[in-house]
């Protein structure tokens, strides 16, 4: 499962619209236990596509998104004893 999500994330990072990558990242965090690597994908997405202008001046949107999704997924998984 982890490997499949890694492949899906690489494909979405390079070829698919950003929102498709966001959905894959969300699914990976909820379905794979301790998917820490997701943050690396966020950092790479920012390094690939981000500029000093960012989005309204903030240049680490993808990193922030992955950190939030990972944290939320960890909390939910723990509470639900997934």
């Amino acid at each position, binding site marked *: 499962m982890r490997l499949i999500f890694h492949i899906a994330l690489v494909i979405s990072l390079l070829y698919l619209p950003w929102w498709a990558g966001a959905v894959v990242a969300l699914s990976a965090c909820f379905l794979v236990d301790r998917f820490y690597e997701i*943050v690396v994908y966020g950092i790479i997405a920012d390094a690939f596509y981000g500029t000093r202008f960012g989005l309204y001046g903030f240049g680490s949107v*993808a990193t922030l998104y992955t950190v939030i999704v990972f944290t939320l997924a960890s909390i939910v998984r723990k509470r639900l004893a997934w």
Partner: protein
Amino acid sequence: MTYLRRSNRGPKRARGAAIAAIVALALVFSVNYFFPRAFPSLLYPVSSLFWKSESGIVGWFVYMGKIAQSKYSLVKENRRLSDEIAARDRSILALDALQSENESLKTALGRTGKENHVLGVILSRPPVAPYDTLVVDAGTGDGVKAGDKVYAEGDVLIGDVTEAFGGQSKISLFSTPGRITSVLVGTSTIAAEATGRGGGNFIVKLPAKISVVKGAVITVPSIRSHVFGVVDAVIVDSTGSLQTILFKSPVNISQLRFVEIGRK
């Protein structure tokens, strides 16, 4: 009754792994934050290979589908004619801007705004990029450097180079959300500040008494006039003192294959 002692090893190991992962991630983030060119320099050469193959693979599937429809030649002809019409429409828009530019340049003879242009193939564009950025296959090896202006369809200014690597460059579009650009509105060249809204869209606020019509050309203050956008809508606010002008770039970024980078 005998109870087996619960092992504390599991949670301890998990906590250790979590701390190690957080430290590693913080390290990766720090490298990217303090050395923003490090990851793109390493990864762009690899990703470029995939991006270049993507256009070939996707293009093959698209054309195979059209052959199956047995109307391939008609589709091709239709596309060519559509592109030609769109290019001519843009040329007409450029003429308006050039006419007014010509008048003002008569007093400034001897000055030229000539740039050497480098053609760049777009490797990645929105919506793949979450930001309004393009990655093109021309870099410092082709003489491209940060700050160079980027044009589409010959004369439409769309962005500038923010980072140039060996064989690739990252371009930030002027329509990046929140990015402010100085523009001239209409043929009367009213100076204003346009704010990017993403996807080639912009917003400008001007006093309501200034007359701006739908279809007016927006240019940028430069020795050479370049079309920047076309007014799409004019909305006067409830107080009647201000008007909001919504305009967009005349080129569709998602349909572009090449851009021209103006080397200074």
